[in-house]
């Protein structure tokens, strides 16, 4: 059974049109992460939530926002997508901040975002 679920698998939006990607988890993990992965590149962390505490990476553009209304759900909002934002977006969870344990991150299948 899928433990980290991302919807949709494929998302197409227009240049400049806001888009929201969703992630849910059944693991009851404290931490949820959003990564951007462009073709043949490593995932790049955008931000993560530890419970309700939001942690933004320093180089994450302001165009990217996130919401975590409860433990199970986390959303990635792209306010004005540009062509350079076309990528795979990966959601991941971990029980704790990984430095506190050796629990691995659990990844979703990802949402591939295309910009027209």
């Amino acid at each position: 059974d899928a433990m980290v679920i991302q919807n949709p698998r494929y998302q197409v939006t227009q240049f400049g049109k806001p888009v929201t990607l969703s992630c849910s988890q059944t693991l009851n993990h404290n931490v949820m992460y959003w990564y951007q992965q462009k073709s043949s590149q490593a995932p790049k962390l955008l931000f993560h939530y530890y419970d309700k505490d939001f942690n933004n990476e320093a180089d994450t553009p302001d165009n990217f926002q996130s919401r975590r209304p409860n433990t199970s759900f986390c959303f990635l909002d792209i306010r004005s997508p540009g062509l350079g934002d076309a990528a795979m977006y990966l959601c991941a969870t971990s029980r704790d901040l990984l430095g506190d344990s050796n629990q691995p991150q659990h990844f979703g299948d990802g949402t591939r975002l295309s910009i027209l």
Partner: protein
Amino acid sequence: AQTVTQSQPEMSVQEAETVTLSCTYDTSENNYYLFWYKQPPSRQMILVIRQEAYKQQNATENRFSVNFQKAAKSFSLKISDSQLGDTAMYFCASLSGNTPLVFGKGTRLSVIA
């Protein structure tokens, strides 16, 4: 700051043969963890194997094993008896403290029948 370097963008191996993927890392922490993740085409990223830096014994998981050389900051992955299903991107990653995972750029492995 942590860095992870994978110097082999692509590799190929014949089915049933053994292949080794290289990874080096840099960290100022004394306690850290190292991981290899596998990302098959159009499928989710999954953990293959992990290593705690304080453990000298190399981790093994069935056909997957690592060669952890702490002094050299090297963490290579050996895949024995390669199977077609091993075809994927392989990412080396490290973490320490409360910082999230740092990934290498990945190695694309193709297993050839």
